[in-house]
């Protein structure tokens, strides 16, 4: 039995301890905002926050998260999340949208760590989030906009 916090609520999982966290989130908790892309931490679509840090849930066995706090796109909140939401809608960042929950989780984590990121900071933090619609230019601009909106 694994006990953890999901978006602020205590949850338990008593299935196979090797089950990837992504499966638990989507199939058992029915939170389908977090996406399956590659299954091997190559694309970033499954990014969640694990104890406040970005983490690829597809390569995270649920046994690893005993006692941890997991936040998904459904539960992300706070100054950075609000700024990112406003910036994302302001620029209509998504095209097909499949990768965007992962993009947003990585962007929020970056802004929590680096409130005013440079292009290089953005490249470094977002390099593991692939977008087949190539919305990268809007993602970068939206992160800058979110950072600017948090100033002052």
């Amino acid at each position, binding site marked *: 039995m694994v006990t953890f916090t999901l978006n602020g609520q205590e949850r338990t999982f008593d299935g196979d301890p090797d089950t990837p966290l992504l499966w638990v989130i989507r199939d058992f908790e029915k939170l389908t905002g977090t996406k399956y892309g590659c299954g*091997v931490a190559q694309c970033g679509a499954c990014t969640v926050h694990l104890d406040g840090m970005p983490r690829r849930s597809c*390569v995270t066995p649920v046994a690893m998260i005993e006692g941890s706090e997991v936040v998904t796109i459904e539960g992300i909140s706070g100054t950075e999340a609000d700024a990112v939401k406003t910036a994302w809608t302001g620029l209509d960042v998504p095209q097909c949208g499949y990768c965007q929950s992962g993009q947003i989780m990585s962007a929020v984590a970056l802004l929590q760590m680096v409130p005013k990121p440079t292009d290089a900071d953005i490249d470094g933090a977002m390099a593991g989030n692939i977008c087949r619609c190539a919305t990268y230019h809007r993602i970068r601009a939206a992160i800058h906009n979110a950072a600017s909106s948090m100033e002052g």
Partner: protein
Amino acid sequence: MNWKLALTGVAALCLFVGAGTLLSPASVAQDAKTLKPAASFQSIANERERSVALFQEAGKVIQHPRCVNCHPATDRPLQGASMHPHQPPVFRGDGGMGLPGMQCTTCHSAENTPVVGQADTIKSIPGNPAWHLAPIEMAWAGKSLAQICQQIKDPARNGGKTMDQIVEHMAHDELVGWGWKPGAGREPVPGTQAEFGELITAWVKSGAACPAS
């Protein structure tokens, strides 16, 4: 002369030679997966030659992709037996732990993690509690064993370690030890960490001589 018998003899000889030819690569392959015991180098009377031979044997570990991939010459780790640049593109960052928002722990755990429902080419994500890159001054990629040998002895390029600390690091460090248990889908470095530690110990005791090239 019985031609039938003669031909059978030739055929048998061909088979014999053929078998020998086949055995050679197999024994070489086996040699690459094991380490000769440090004690077996005692037969080399000249101490300097013995020391060099010990380090060359240890070099089978040191120059293996499992070790060199995290001793890259740039800020980007290497990956796989082919030692290609790490995918996704990740970079050194503070303490070799990655950049803000894309640290090693975004994907790597405290242990090797099997992946489910994937192609045979990717069986697990490697992991260790101390997962990080070696500092840039300890870069090994692209260097000869002789250059790496000099580097390992140089406190300015070995993390300020004494030779005793080098022995301890090689013989007992947990992240070094990961090389022998790298997880499904990755070839371990040759031999065992204990055998490797004995080779390094014997190398240091014999004067820590380096190969000429």
